């Protein structure tokens, strides 16, 4: 992929951010942050979770009011009181989550994001024209709930483009895309910058930022800790600027693989929810000591795969065999007793009960294997000791095991959830998105724990949308695409193109007509 847009650099400053400060009770989210965004540039905003990136963009988009500091747009004071005002000044935003309405159709979703939408029929026609012009074809009358993740993102982008934005804010836009879809998105963005639109680009994928962005501002704990030109800075240097310390890379000890412990054959399962994905004829074999990475774009059957393996949804008895014994019809606790443990993606509400203490949460999955109850009576002392063991061994930062799961930060709760399963010495461990929304040092610790577990002879399945993570921990790789699992291939030697094709290619998208 080349850099066709580099010569179109427009140099006028579009947005000046000067000394923006926003404090919440107990935490300063932004501390006198200042930087400039030029017209026609792609400006990256880097930082770990909690560094204050989202607060900053919410202030630019008028969702949050700064405590102090000013913004200038084209030299004039810019202080949007609400998103409407920001949109009127030419600021548009593509959200990472929460901004589409599943039950409404594409045109209705787009109309909701516009100030003065034209009548539906005209709007539908404009959606067709603009979406084809930018290589993101969309049918205005399809229900959004039926669209793939990539198509849903197109809806958001088109919604922004229809307002002729001067500044487009994108929050983690590529986390839901296949590599091919990312290429298409980047072509679209380059076409936009060539027209003079500035893009504020938030991502933690540093290689992408090096490829796409003209400038970068790095936030750490709410402060601007530096700027750099991404193309001239290594990904590792940028990561260390974000974290503030040197990064530990997880190391695999490379244990030899043992016998097949988990054998899935012909696993099919209808979708358990209205907008879910059905699993279709999934086959895989997992050997002791193996780490299998399952990639794929969100919503292609990852959650359903976990439900089928955990026992929350029963399938044919013979579809899942654990050490030769059919377990497909067994409930979660019976599977735990046999050594098949799982850690789902949603930390609050699925992996942990938010308002219960860590001790109680330790009991919820640890009861069977750790013998935390007897004849229906709970052994609180033993349970608390188990919770304290998890907290100590996995460096969970919390005042103690009596604290509610809800009170922990994402990374700490994730360490607790993973640690709780690891310490039960599973035969097979299945984790879904183990480091989603977790800061870099906690993510490294979790990946190391997975590798250590595998070195001890446990078979591990890591389901993740973070390809870098899978490349780092997995021995073998397979991808889920519309509920089907590809063949398993060794991670070593796989190219990013091959992975992209395994994930389903570009889902029928076409590249933007860059010369149009």
């Amino acid at each position, binding site marked *: 992929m080349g850099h066709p847009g580099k010569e179109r650099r427009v140099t006028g400053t579009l947005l000046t951010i000067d000394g923006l400060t926003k404090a919440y009770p107990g935490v300063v989210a932004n501390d006198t942050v200042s930087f400039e965004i030029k017209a026609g540039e792609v400006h990256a905003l880097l930082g770990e979770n909690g560094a204050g990136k989202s607060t900053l963009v919410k202030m630019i988009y008028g969702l949050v009011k700064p405590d102090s500091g000013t913004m200038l747009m084209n030299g004039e004071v810019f202080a949007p009181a609400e998103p409407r005002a920001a949109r009127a000044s030419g600021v548009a935003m593509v959200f990472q989550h929460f901004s589409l*309405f599943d039950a409404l159709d594409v045109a209705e979703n787009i109309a909701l994001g516009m100030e003065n939408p034209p009548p539906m029929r005209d709007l539908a026609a404009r959606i067709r024209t603009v979406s084809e012009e930018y290589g993101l074809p969309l049918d205005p009358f399809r229900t959004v709930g039926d669209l793939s993740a990539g198509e849903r993102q197109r809806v958001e982008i088109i919604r922004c483009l229809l307002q002729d934005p001067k500044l487009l804010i994108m929050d983690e836009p590529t986390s839901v895309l296949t590599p091919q879809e990312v290429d298409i998105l980047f072509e679209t963005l380059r076409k936009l910058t060539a027209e003079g639109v500035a893009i504020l680009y938030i991502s933690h994928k540093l290689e992408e930022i090096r490829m796409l962005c003209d400038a970068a501002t790095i936030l750490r704990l709410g402060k601007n800790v530096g700027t750099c030109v991404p193309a001239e800075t290594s990904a590792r240097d940028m990561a260390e600027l974000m974290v503030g310390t040197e990064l530990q890379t997880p190391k695999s000890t490379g244990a030899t693989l043992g016998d097949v412990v988990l054998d899935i054959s012909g696993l099919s399962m209808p979708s358990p929810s209205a907008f879910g994905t059905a699993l279709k004829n999934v086959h895989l074999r997992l050997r002791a000591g193996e780490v299998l990475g399952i990639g794929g774009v969100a919503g292609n059957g990852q959650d359903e795969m976990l439900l089928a393996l955990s026992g929350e949804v029963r399938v044919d008895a013979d579809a899942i065999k654990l050490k030769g014994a059919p377990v497909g019809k067994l409930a979660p606790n019976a599977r735990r007793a046999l050594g098949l443990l799982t850690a789902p993606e949603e930390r609050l509400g699925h992996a942990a009960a938010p308002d219960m203490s860590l001790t109680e949460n330790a009991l919820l999955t640890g009861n069977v294997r750790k013998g935390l109850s007897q004849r229906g009576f709970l052994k609180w002392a033993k349970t608390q000791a188990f919770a304290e063991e998890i907290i100590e061994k996995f460096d969970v930062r919390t005042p103690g095991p009596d604290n509610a799961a809800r009170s922990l930060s994402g990374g700490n709760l994730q360490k607790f959830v993973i640690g709780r399963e690891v310490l039960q010495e599973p035969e097979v461990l299945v984790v879904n998105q183990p480091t989603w929304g977790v800061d870099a040092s906690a993510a490294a610790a979790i990946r190391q724990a997975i590798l250590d577990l595998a070195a001890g002879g446990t078979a591990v399945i890591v389901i993740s949308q973070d390809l870098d993570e899978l490349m780092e921990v997995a021995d073998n790789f397979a991808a889920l695409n519309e509920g089907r699992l590809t063949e398993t291939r060794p991670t070593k030697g796989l190219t990013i193109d091959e992975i992209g094709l395994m994930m389903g290619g570009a889902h029928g998208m076409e590249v933007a007509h860059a010369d149009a």
Partner: protein
Amino acid sequence: MDLSAINPALLLASLLVAATPILIAGIGELVVERAGVLNLGVEGMMITGAICGFMATIITGSPALGFLFAALGGAALSLLFALLTQVALANQVASGLALTLFGLGLSALLGQGYVGLKPPSTPKLDIPLLSDIPFFGTVLFNHDIIVYLGIALVAAVWAVLKFTRVGLVLRAVGENHDAAHALGYKVVRIRVLAIMFGGACAGLGGAYISLIRVPQWTEGMTAGAGWIALALVVFASWKPWRVLLGAWLFGGITVLQLNLQAAGVSIPVEILSMSPYIITIVVLVIMSADKSRAPASLGRIFHASS
């Protein structure tokens, strides 16, 4: 048994009358639920509307003012629910049940001096020529204005939800309040307004019972109509015209079974009395088997985290 005593024209005419209270209360609750709020206090708001309207009519002598005050009374009571659930972020189910109990008690207290009184009758909208048409005149064109208002409300709610921006925003808020908030829509304000609309409709429906259908005041006289209206909304899959259909079905079978009882049909009275409930629910369950589903944010508490 003498089935010939049943006059089909009068039967159909009284069907429209019997259906009106639950129709108006139901269409109000439909708007509330499409905005993502589950208000189980319909019964309480109806009975409050019934007594407010009754009192205002007795005092002023004007049924029109009576209906106005019924709507205001229902809306005022619903504002209490709005405060609890939208500002204090209380649980909607518990708040709604409390609202029903509160409304029943409040109306009993207010209505103590009004038992046994007879309100001035509401004039029928005698449309010249049209109401003289045989059969159709009796069925369609010989009613009080509230019957037509109910049908007009259904049409208006349907059109607003489907064709206007206000309707789109309301549906968006009910579908995903976080997204609506992120786009800059005032979730709480929209919901409070929807709740008050629902309260006003419930009040009107209640007053229709105390001023026209019965017409007098007795404690607890709505007798579960609010719950029927709630069930109607769910089984109608949150679609306005289906609420109309369900209300007519329920009202029709209610008057039919009364007529059958009077005619001395040899079916046990108990079975006849329960038939409107059973048949309405069965029909609507069959109809709601299509893909339609509840607004995704229904009953969830919205808290704008910044």
